[in-house]
């Protein structure tokens, strides 16, 4: 009895918090199902999840950064760097495991650079990551002079194409990373410190939170998440492309903000970001199935983001 009550209360709270964007997601699904009956199928649902995986994982990292009141515009470039590092590892004859390790390490180091410049030199993260966005994008082309690099390693390509227990591996990865980030943010003192610092940096500093170290760590998380996105993307493409992940940072920001993360810092959840990423995924998938030209897709996506955020802000204001 008390269990169902608690469950009901949790349900109410979730509806209050996510009602606005869940409504937007449901509306999109209804519209696409009416226009195209094939949209509502298990196969297509898995398809959407696969397509959205790269954005979703990058958006988990972005949520941490935005939560702190910062921004990371370099993740699209890190996605490309990660793919290229993986591809080069195989060129140099390394195995699958070292290739994965080196790729993740690269993501961490690139994040470390962003974080250190932001925290220690006290430069605005917007400027730092605009600069590193260009630098990292340039670095991708160094090994191949701008040409793509094919990846033939069967393990690497399996990530993006194979199934495990009937579900694509890529979806397992998204699920695991979602749980990891969600638990780290909502259940640990690390997550609490991120919320406190994002809510009031000065108060956090005076309370003994090592704000600089926290900021650097979070930029590293963002870098690692982007590197994982890069692995998934390159494995789906069977290659490292120099223009991989261009403008993905904007989709990741959109997913986080759709999910209720405040650009002012201190507010946001991984659950919200996941829903936000799904909205973007459903839109892409639905419009692709209808063969909507790419430029129309951009216009529609922009409008949907505006309306969804407006609905969400309005419903939250009404509750206050």
């Amino acid at each position, binding site marked *: 009895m008390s269990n169902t009550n608690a469950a009901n209360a949790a349900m109410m709270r979730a509806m209050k918090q996510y009602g606005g964007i869940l409504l937007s997601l449901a509306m999109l699904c209804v519209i696409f199902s009416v226009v195209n009956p094939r949209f509502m199928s298990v196969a297509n649902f898995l398809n959407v999840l696969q397509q959205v995986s790269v954005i979703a994982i990058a958006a988990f990292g972005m949520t941490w950064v935005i939560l702190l009141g910062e921004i990371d515009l370099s993740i699209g470039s890190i996605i490309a760097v990660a793919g290229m590092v993986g591809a080069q590892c195989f060129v140099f004859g390394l195995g699958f495991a070292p290739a994965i390790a080196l790729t993740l390490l690269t993501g961490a180091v690139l994040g470390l650079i962003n974080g250190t410049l932001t925290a220690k030199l006290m430069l605005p993260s917007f400027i730092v990551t605009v600069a590193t966005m260009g630098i990292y994008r340039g670095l991708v082309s160094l090994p191949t002079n701008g040409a793509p690099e094919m990846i033939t390693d069967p393990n690497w390509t399996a990530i993006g194409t194979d199934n495990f227990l009937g579900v694509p591996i890529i979806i397992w990865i998204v699920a695991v990373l979602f749980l990891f980030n969600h638990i780290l943010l909502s*259940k*640990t*003192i*690390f*997550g*609490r*410190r991120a*919320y*406190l610092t994002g*809510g*009031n940096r*000065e*108060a*956090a*500093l*005076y*309370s*003994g*939170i*090592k704000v600089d170290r926290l900021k650097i760590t979070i930029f590293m998380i963002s870098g690692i998440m982007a590197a994982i996105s890069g692995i998934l993307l390159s494995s789906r493409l069977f290659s490292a492309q120099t223009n991989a992940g261009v403008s993905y940072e904007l989709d990741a920001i959109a997913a986080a903000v759709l999910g209720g993360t405040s650009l002012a810092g*201190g*507010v946001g959840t991984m659950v919200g970001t996941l829903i936000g990423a799904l909205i973007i995924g459903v839109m892409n998938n639905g419009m692709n199935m209808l063969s909507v030209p790419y430029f129309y897709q951009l216009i529609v996506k922009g409008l949907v983001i505006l309306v969804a955020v407006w609905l969400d802000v309005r419903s939250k204001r009404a509750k206050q």
Partner: protein
Amino acid sequence: MPGRGGVSDGRKDTTMASSDIILDIRDVTKSFGPVTALKSMQLQVRRGRVHTILGENGAGKSTLMKILAGVYQPTSGSIVLDGTPYAPADPQEAARAGLTIVFQELSLCNNLTVAENILATREPATAGFINDRALVAKAAALVGELHLPVDVTQQVGDLSVAQRQLVEIAKGLSIEAKVVILDEPTSSLSDSEAEILFGIIEKLKRRGVAVIYISHRMEEIMRLSDDITVVRDGSYIATRESQDTTIEELIALMVGRDMNEIYPARDVAVPAGTPVLEVKGLSRDSEFENISFDVRAGEILGFFGLVGSGRSEVMNTLFGIKRASAGHVAIDGAAVAIASPADAIVKGIAFVTENRKEEGLVLSHSVSSNISMVGLKKFSNLFGFLRQGREREAANDEVARLAIKTASLETQAGALSGGNQQKIVLAKWLLTRPKILILDEPTRGVDVGAKFEIYKIIRKLAAEGTAILLISSELPEVIGMSDRIAVMHEGRLSATLSGTDRTPEKIMTFATGSTS
């Protein structure tokens, strides 16, 4: 005093010529849904007089002021301003009708200059282009007329809190007004700066302007006011002329109980013994020089100085926010190096800062999240997971121990009154069981009732053996609470006074540098 408590006795009405009354508030009520914030409020303000409204936080002062400013509309009742019914729909309309309000919360843009702020939205301009020279000249004239020690071309962000408050006042007074409302204008001013403000108020009175004054400082109220209206729990309680009343009577009216003493007496003697904290020759370039003092367990060392004397800078350095350029700090006899707040906390120092909203609280977070903020490690298991049950329990204990009035532990800290917010800041530090507690202006913007409770908490902590550094701009507070008083003047420690030397005259002499 029989017959003087409780309700209005109406004896003012006979002496008050009706033409004198510039603002007449009768039976005003204000409800927010089921909550009644104001019940049948009465207020008659006369031309050329200072009328103080006195009440604890949450008594309804702010609601009344927001109605006057046009932010809220009353649920019922009548307001007459200068003979015509007054019902402003928004603050602009209130200003046009001749009512100016200077809020306690600073509403300046830090990125703009003093002149740009003072004349904001009223810049001298032709065809949309701002005439910078006229802007500066006009602002300089205003500031000069008020004798403010401020350069109008400076950026507001570069000013001290006190200077900003003065600019805020100048901005308010730059509009010709019939009624001026000053909401806690002295809360961040030192005594000398407050004097400047009192001079301005005198001038306003002579011009025939009515001043509605809100403050928690009793001495100041007694000195400045002509009339005093006490409100409690959203209701009108009484109006007195200041010459006919006493601080004791006002406090009794305000809290609805007698309060014999504002400062609780020390009931345990200061234990002799070795100092917990020793500071020797602490210096920081261009801020302070050669500061030496010590504090024993259970002792309260007061720090007094005018704004700009370097008190807060010394404490920030001690706490590791700023780096010292010279000097030694020892805790329990052992030299310590403190490079960050985290270091200071590990060494047993707690620091309740001057600005609770900026450095103390995360206003958008819950009461419990704010209380657990410093001691977060205590609520973590081996893997860094938060033990939320324990966190809630500890927060609950502190809420009970310090009598924090909050609807729940989940309530946003920003929704509480100033006194309760300050108690949350105290609570978060007390959870760390500090050896040394630094309190920088612990009762600023806190009502009398909560002030007394905070004083009791400070006494109790001292009795339990905490060494306390109490920084305050309020002389009576420093004298009433401290065992010894360190006085600072222009970055130097000019005296440490104890026993019967702790007189206001002596302290002020050293604080103003009147001795050599």
